């Protein structure tokens, strides 16, 4: 692991984002560049994994190793990377649909395994890339391309879910406060274990009126300003219930005593097995000795 002095621009690739002008994901990208420049890991030491969606395009806009995988499967693939090369900094990103609809089944398991991953969800409460269908975080009643008369179901609550899965780091941000978001992302990366940041990232083309940058600017409230204690999981749970009603930014929960990561336990197990035998010994136990 090399530590180098890098600026935000060192993480910017030559690929031009194809997001709609004004899309919140631009701000997320800026925040990420900034956060990474604070971390000090070189781009080649970073693996940046995503699913499919507008938001999932983000790895390509960085100079890191990127893997724009398939819809909903970024987390398992990221875990494979981390298992293979624990020395890498592994980031995961995607949309609300990618993460909590099709990919929803992987979140709990990524959390409970506790790999040192940072998972950024760009939550715009809509399916952007496919042009405006219902997303799992779309509020009840929302009219979209697939709910012309309003949605019939209650939304997912990403914050509450991930907290109840036992994650060690759960935060929320918005590109409406880019520097604040950059700080949150940096903290998430620094947390030694699974870290989740829900980013309220407006979709200017298909998103709701109330989910636009202007509204965010007017309504967002830092958790610090409401006197929240980051180490209080119960209080975090309570505040998380306001998802969709209030826009809190900052860290909901940070485990003050991070438990060992999965990769640390793996390393321990490998070491416990003692010296590496020759691969040719692998069949020895099957020898049918006559004595």
């Amino acid at each position, binding site marked *: 692991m090399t530590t180098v002095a890098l600026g935000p621009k060192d993480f910017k690739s030559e690929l031009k984002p194809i997001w709609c002008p004004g899309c919140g994901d631009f701000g997320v990208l800026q925040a990420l560049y900034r956060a990474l420049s604070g971390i000090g890991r070189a781009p080649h030491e970073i693996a940046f994994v995503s699913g499919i969606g507008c938001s999932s395009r983000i790895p390509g806009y960085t100079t890191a190793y990127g*893997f724009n995988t398939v819809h909903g499967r970024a987390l*398992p693939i990221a875990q494979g990377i981390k298992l293979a090369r624990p020395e890498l900094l592994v980031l995961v990103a995607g949309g609300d649909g990618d993460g909590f609809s099709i990919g929803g089944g992987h979140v709990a398991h990524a959390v409970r395994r506790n790999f040192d991953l940072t998972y950024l969800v760009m939550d715009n409460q809509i399916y952007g890339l496919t042009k405006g269908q219902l997303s799992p975080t779309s509020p009840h009643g929302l009219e979209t391309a697939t709910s012309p008369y309003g949605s019939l179901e209650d939304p997912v609550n990403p914050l509450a879910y991930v907290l109840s899965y036992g994650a060690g780091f759960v935060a929320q941000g918005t590109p409406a406060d880019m520097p604040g978001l950059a700080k949150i992302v940096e903290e998430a990366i620094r947390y030694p274990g699974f870290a989740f940041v829900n980013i309220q990232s407006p979709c200017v083309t298909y998103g709701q009126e109330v989910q636009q940058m202007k509204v965010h600017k007017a309504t967002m409230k830092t958790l610090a300003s409401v006197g929240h204690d980051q180490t209080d999981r119960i209080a975090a749970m309570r505040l998380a219930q306001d998802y969709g009603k209030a826009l809190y930014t900052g860290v909901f929960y940070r485990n003050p005593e991070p438990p060992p990561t999965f990769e640390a336990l793996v390393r321990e197990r490998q070491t416990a097995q003692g010296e590496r035998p020759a691969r040719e010994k692998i069949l020895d136990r099957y020898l049918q000795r006559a004595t």
Partner: protein
Amino acid sequence: MRAWIEIGKETGAEEQMAEDLIIGMAGSGGDGIVSAGEALVSAAASEGFHAMMTKSFGSQIRGGESSCRVRLSIRRLHNPGGVLDVAVALNWEDFLRFGAELPVGGDTVVIYEEATGVAPHEIPLPGVLPREVFAVPIDALAKEAMGTDKAKTSVVLGLLAGWFDIAPAGILRGMAKRWGKKGPEVLSGNEKAFALGQRYAAEHPLAVARKLSRPPDERVGKQLLLDGNDMCAAAAIFAGCEVFGGYPITPSTEVMQFLTREIWKYGGAVLQAEDEIASIGVAVGASYAGKKAMTATSGPGMSLKTEILGLASLAELPLVLLNVQRGGPSTGSPTKPEQSDLFQAAFSAHGDVLRPILAPTTVADTFRVTVEAFNLAEHYQTPVIILSDQEIAQRKETVEPIEFSRFDVLSRREPAGAELEHYRRFLLTESGISPISHPGMVGGNYLAAGIEHNEHGDPTVSGKMHALMNEKRFRKLAPLERRHDLFEIVGPADAPLGLVSWGSNAGVCREAMELARARGLQVKLLVPTLIYPVAREVYEGFFASVEAGLVVEQSHQGQLYRILRMYVDVPRGVTSLARSGANPFQPAEVAAKLAELALGLQVRHGRQAQE
């Protein structure tokens, strides 16, 4: 090939020496019939016999019916054999549940539990009355030896050792190992049960005594005994597999179970994922990170892995995927073998995809095939599917010690030097293979994606680029079709009769061919290790002399036959001999079909058959 050698005439004694013996046993789950088989086969293996054992169960986890088939020989074995030489039934209900899996013939020696109350001439075998049938008080002998019926297994072993002279010393050694741990009483009780079994056999001799010939001394203590799943896992470690992503599913789970015991020692790791999608995801992630990776499953899991399998093809990531085939479709028959996932292996992902499929034919062969799979995956940067099946995966087989030095282990071609200056991950090279970097490598940074890309890996919607990349992904695998070493041809090159078979059925066909040739038929056999892509040249060469023949496989549709037709002009006289799983082919049956075909040829040619 089986043969009773009549030696009675010379020695004057009514006795036959058997070079090969097939024993089938069935009982209910608690009876320990499978342990008996295991004891038998490992005793025989340690004494130098070639041995093979398959198990078969009902759907219960515990209790229910269970059976095993043990084949012992002084010659190399290719399959678990057809009609039984010896049948052991602890009760008839359970025995009969296995139907065609435990076929009894007129020459079969039948041994069954006397307490079933069935008279020897009334045993409920449809359409056959074997000449030698023994109702043995197995339960009673066990109780006599131990006070309980716990030692039934040992009685059965005693009977078999007594009647057929099967490795008694080895069996006793095995018993000492197994029961010794449980204390001296348990051991001596079982030893006594064994002795009672032997004595019973001595007191009730066979009408025609049959003793198993002994293997040469130099084979003693030199063999391995294991099943296909363990062999595959061991080979994966030998080939350098460092990450395994898995999810339990019968009959492949033992691969993960082996690796999770062993892989850590070699610096690797196993992750049991939440489902099959995640497990292939883990493997693909590890491969992207530059490590050799594998996942294993059976039919339903294959279906779930389809999408990410396609991603690995498009992103050109090495990956080995083992499918231990069971009866399909859907949940199907999880504990039975079938060869019906070939279509899926070849064609499941959407879009134009080509990935190599390899199939082992025996446990021993599984080593070579697995190492080859890793080599192909790494060299060609592609997923490779190993199509095993429940029979190979779960049957135990004696294997000669492996000469590891004979196996090359390949790794992927990484970029270096100038290649890293303006690195293009998907460089359109002549071979179609582009040097592949991995996170952590300075200068190798690129975007991998499931979206179609240009040479740099950047997304593109260009139809032209898409065509170029499709072409590249197929071109790189073209050399595979010239890998003659991945095909075995046995028999005279100019034979007019041809057999093609694959996987576990290849062993049946080997024996069928020997039977047929012993009867003077001119037959040759082609066994592909590389099942797909279809190596046109190899098949055309093989078929050149063939006027009639069979493609033999265990699936309703005859999937290999159909796939061959896609790419090869299969001679009209070559047809598909195929049927659904758990209705195994017998060597004699295939040989008989060949004889029919030969007759047909004679009629056609209007002349006498060749010798």
